[in-house]
């Protein structure tokens, strides 16, 4: 029984359970002339849930556990002699699995029968050639113990699948029956199903936590090894970022943080006013037809691959700023600059501000606007003093999202602002960001265990902690200024 089929059967059982449960609830209420506690559908749902959830959990657990179990069983069958020198048991196991798959393929094609298969011996048959016919390529000829192991691998997996499938079906039917029998007019069916939904909601929101844990965990160990080979103090307070290929690098984070901050700031200075004005215009001034065209159009800006923006920065904006502003003002003659990257990035993140804010502004009740208009306020006064404050939490969320995007961007920075880490106030100079350096150090040609590569993890973790701090601050501000309408 393949898991797919079991899942389908379980789904069928729970569907039937739903119908029967519902029907039973209805008929009970009719015969006892008592109102049901919940809508009949909820009774159906409880049966369906009980039919599906335990079975699916068991099945899922089995899918995880079975390979482990089978592997341990089968690995034991492989004598050390067939394990090539320098190789590992796990690799032979890969062969075993490949052969087992191959056998399945052959069987499916009807090349041989089960009986013939059990007769078959690796030393007598050319298993490799045999499997090659069904498109399963093997790296080497098959030693007999491996072939035997493959056969029993197949056998055990089959039995395992069967047992698990049977168990799942039994659970499904058993729980379904139990849930069905339990139905009574005063069964709190809605509460049961809602508790289940709630559990789903809770587990969905814990994913954020798990992701965070995962990120921290995956960054932490390498960061730790980084700080073992590189002094933490240097990293945090040094103002020089100068990695060397052959060691002896200076890896101060400050210039990178400054670049990140500076470029993101420029991007936000471009994106927030533009985005907000677009949002305001679309939500308050534009007619529905304009809005329905412009909004999705602006959203395309967020979907254009960043390489396009990067090239735009490199080829158009950078030289323009250099030739028309920086050089005449004597502010340098670099075509890559903070301003170039910031402006272009700002354009890219406009939709983050505009679209989300537009939705939120649109959700502000009309009564508030009416209240303001009736006092003789102009539309812009109303927007600035009534609508926007009421929409503030959402707008802050949108801006944070935009800022986040700006912090995480690489391509535009690389092409627009260059790769030079520098602490400078001049926006016409090239600088770079933490994210860019994470990418470049991580994908570079230096050896992995060197501080030059490991620093990427330390950069990642530091950035993570810093943005966390910023977000706490943002939350605090939003809480303070939140205006709850009604």
């Amino acid at each position: 029984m393949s898991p797919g089929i079991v899942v389908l059967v379980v789904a069928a059982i729970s569907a039937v359970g739903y119908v029967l449960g519902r029907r039973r609830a209805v008929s009970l209420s009719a015969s006892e002339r008592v109102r049901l506690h919940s809508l009949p559908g909820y009774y159906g749902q409880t049966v369906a849930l009980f039919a599906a959830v335990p079975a699916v959990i068991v099945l899922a657990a089995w899918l995880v556990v079975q390979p482990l179990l089978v592997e341990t069983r089968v690995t034991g069958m492989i004598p050390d002699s067939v394990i090539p020198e320098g190789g590992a048991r796990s690799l032979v196991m890969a062969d075993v699995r490949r052969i087992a798959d191959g056998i399945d393929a052959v069987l499916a094609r009807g090349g041989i029968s089960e009986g013939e298969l059990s007769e078959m011996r690796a030393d007598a048959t050319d298993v490799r050639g045999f499997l090659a016919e069904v498109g399963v390529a093997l790296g080497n000829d098959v030693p007999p113990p491996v072939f035997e192991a493959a056969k029993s691998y197949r056998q055990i997996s089959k039995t395992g699948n069967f047992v698990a499938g049977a168990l799942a079906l039994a659970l499904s039917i058993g729980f379904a029956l139990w849930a069905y029998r339990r139905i009574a007019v005063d069964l709190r069916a809605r509460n049961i199903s809602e508790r289940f939904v709630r559990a789903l909601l809770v587990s969905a929101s814990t994913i954020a936590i798990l992701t965070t844990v995962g990120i921290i965990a995956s960054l932490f160990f390498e960061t730790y090894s980084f700080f073992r080979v590189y002094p933490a103090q240097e990293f945090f307070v040094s103002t020089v970022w100068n990695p060397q290929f052959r060691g002896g690098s200076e890896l101060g984070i400050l210039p990178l943080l400054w670049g990140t901050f500076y470029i993101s700031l420029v991007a936000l200075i471009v994106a927030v006013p533009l985005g907000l004005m677009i949002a305001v215009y679309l939500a308050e001034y534009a007619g529905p037809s304009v809005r329905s065209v412009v909004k999705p159009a602006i959203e395309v800006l967020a979907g254009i691959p960043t390489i396009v923006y990067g090239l735009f920065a490199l080829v158009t904006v950078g030289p323009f700023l250099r030739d028309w502003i920086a050089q005449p003002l004597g502010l340098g003659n670099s075509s890559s600059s903070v301003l170039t990257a910031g402006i272009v990035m700002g354009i890219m993140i406009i939709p983050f501000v505009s679209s989300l804010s537009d939705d939120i502004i649109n959700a502000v009740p009309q009564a508030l606007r009416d209240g303001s208009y009736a006092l003789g306020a102009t539309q812009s006064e109303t927007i600035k003093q009534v609508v926007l404050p009421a929409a503030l939490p959402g707008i802050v969320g949108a801006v944070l999202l935009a800022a986040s995007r700006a912090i995480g961007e690489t391509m535009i920075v690389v092409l627009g602002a260059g790769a030079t880490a520098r602490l400078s106030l001049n926006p016409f100079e090239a600088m770079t960001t933490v994210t860019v350096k994470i990418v470049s150090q991580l994908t570079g040609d230096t050896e992995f265990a060197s501080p030059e590569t490991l620093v990427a993890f330390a950069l990642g973790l530091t950035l993570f902690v810093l943005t966390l701090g910023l977000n706490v601050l943002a939350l605090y501000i939003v809480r303070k200024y939140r205006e709850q309408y009604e």
Partner: protein
Amino acid sequence: MSNMPTTMTTTTKAATMNESKISARKVQVFYGDKHAIKDVEIEIPPRSVTAFIGPSGCGKSTFLRCLNRMNDTIANCRVEGHISIDGENIYDPKVDPVQLRAKVGMVFQKPNPFPKSIYENVAYGPRIHGLARKKSDMDDIVASALQKAGLWNEVKDRLDAPGTGLSGGQQQRLCIARAVAVSPEVILMDEPCSALDPIATAKVEELIHELRANYTIVIVTHSMQQAARVSQRTAMFHLGELVEENDTDKMFTNPDDQRTQDYIMGRFG
């Protein structure tokens, strides 16, 4: 309270007694296909209180909103006809609705305080019109408006609390205070006392009475007694039509129209 005298002296020139402040001719309002106001003609005298009465859904609020073009904000609402204030057609394309609304204030049927502090709710209007130069001026305006609306005692200790955290009746009075604070020439009040207890109602009626000396007031009310108490003229709407418009005394003693009579006697519905 203190700035009342100044305002009074200047307002006199605007409206001569025999002219009407607001005059509406052949006003039609449609919500999409629904014909909500039919051919209404009315003259509203200045410095007086006019009451609109009529059964629920007859178009009182709709007509009231026409008078300061608040209907503009309803997407599918269409107004036809001619309404003029001080002889000027307010639906003229050249008219700035903002200026109009500064002149014609409104209190809505459903209280809609801003999600701001009580103080800010009241100070908002004066601020945008630049009525106060200093913080202390603003404090005075806010205090006096809240006093007039009879809310001062209840909220004076918590002017920083959000206006949305007030009780229904308090919100209603807050909205009245808000409207009064900008001292418009005309005040439209849509059932300003619906959520108020008798004492608060009396307080608001007193305010109306006081304002009458200088302002033109239009009030929608469901209470005949209230209409009788506060208004000089009364207009009776029914199914979108203006059934009768008359001096209040006459209206409640000897109405011209049968329907008015029926309505007042409670024989409708």
